[in-house]
Each structure stands twice: as C-alpha cells, then as structure tokens.
C-alpha cells in the first residue's frame, strides 16, 4: 500500500463513518441524530441557517468559480 492508497483510504474511512452514523440515526435505537436532524437544529437560527447555506455556496465556488 503506497501513500496514495493510504490517503484515499483515509477519506473512505471518514465516508464510511458518516454513512454508518446516518444508518444508526435512521434506525433510531441509539442516541445518534440523523444528518437532517442536525442540520435542522443548526439552521433554526438565522446565523446558523446562513452559515450552512454559505458553506454550500462555497463548495460550488471552490470547484467551479475563479
């Protein structure tokens, strides 16, 4: 396993952790909220709401804009 594989593997581990947390949250048997619940909670205030929307906008800017 080279450095490239190790780095990509790290991202896959993080992705797998996100998917696992979401599945556990959807099953509702453990005190783990779903991502949607977390977003709704954060976005209940104006600053939280705009902060999340700006993070979304930044992704588009980062990948496509000058």
């Amino acid at each position: 396993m080279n450095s490239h594989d190790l780095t990509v593997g790290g991202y896959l581990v993080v992705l797998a952790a996100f998917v696992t947390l979401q599945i556990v949250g959807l099953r509702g048997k453990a005190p783990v909220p779903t991502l949607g619940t977390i977003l709704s909670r954060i976005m209940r205030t104006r600053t939280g709401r705009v902060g999340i929307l700006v993070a979304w906008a930044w992704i588009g800017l980062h990948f496509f804009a000058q």
Partner: protein
Amino acid sequence: MSFVTSTPHGEDEHAPSTERRDVLVAVSGLRHPVVIVLLLIAFFSAIAGKPLDGLLMLLVAAGLAWKARLGPGPAAELPPEGASSGSRSRGGVRLAVALALVTAGVLYAAAVGSFIRFSWPATIAVVGAGAGVIVIGWHGPVRHRPVPGPLPRLGAGLWGGTLLAGGLWELWSLSQQPSLDTTSWAHPTISALTDPLLASHPGRSLALGVWLLLGWYLVRR
C-alpha cells in the same frame, strides 16, 4: 468630573444616536462565531487568489452582523402545510412549481457544465445560483419544518468528531502538496480526487446537479 445633561424630553444628549447605536450593535454582531468564520474565509479566500469567494463571504458576514441589531431572530416559521382550505389546488400549483424548478435545474446543470471550470461564465453562473439560494434561505425555510429539540451529546459529538477527522485528513493532505497550487498524487486532496470527474462536461453537469439539489434541500430545512 463629568456631567450628564438631559434634553427637555428627558433623553440623555450624550447617548448615541439611533444610527450610531445601530452601527455599534452591528459591530458587536461581528463577535458571533459564524460571522468570525465567514470573515476568516473571506480573508483567506482573497489572499489565495479567489477574490469573488472572499467578496461573497464578506457580504454575507456584513449582512449577518447588520441583522444582529434586530436580535438573533430564529428563522421564520411558515404555517404548516395544508393548514387552510384550498390545499388541493395549492398542491397542483406546488407540483407545477416543482416541475419548473427541476427543469430549470437540469437546464442549468447542462448549460453551466459546458463551461470551462474557473472561467468567467462558470463563475458568474455559480455565484448567481449561490447568492440566489442564500437570499431565498435568508428569512427561513421555504416550507414548514418542525424544529428538533436539543441534540444528544454523544451522537452530536460523533458527527462532529467525524467531520473534524475528515477536515484534518484533508488539511494533512494539503500540507503534503509541493505547494498550495500544485496537487500531489501521493497525497491527494478531495479537490484533486474530483478533478478527473470535473474534467468532462457530463461530470461537471452531474456535480452541478447534485450541488443544486443539496442547495434546494437546505433551503427547505
């Protein structure tokens, strides 16, 4: 020794005017963590050669700080769906609007995906869509959503920890690059890993479509 004088109306003439008070309160809004993060992103985007990113972040940070003079204000809640009569006709209108939005989104993704990345046409299109969604979402969700109660600490901590781990892994990969502008095959960042996908028109259109869907999902939260 100082004297406090009052006007005939009982107002303290040394008290700041309404405008000045607004500015002072807005400046105090700069202390909000979200505003600080936005200002930091604006600064680092600008010095990294992304002035438009920086300008957009700066504008939103200034808007949030200015809004702070009206109080923290929870996002406006809309009445529950179907709470009044005529919900069937509204359902038809809603379906038509949804179809129009989907069509517009597909056309947008197909058209903007044909533009070269980081070109001016792509920049204008993405900045326009991003700013539009922020403006739509500024006042609250576009449909009623129950606000969940406090999050369980363990679960929230697990989500936060995973996000932090991902961020640190990306930062470590970035630090292993020869320079900030030069990607490394041995230590690719997420941006570097997505470059092959975004090199083609279909790939860019697909990514833009997913980005738009995510934006629409967020303004409805």
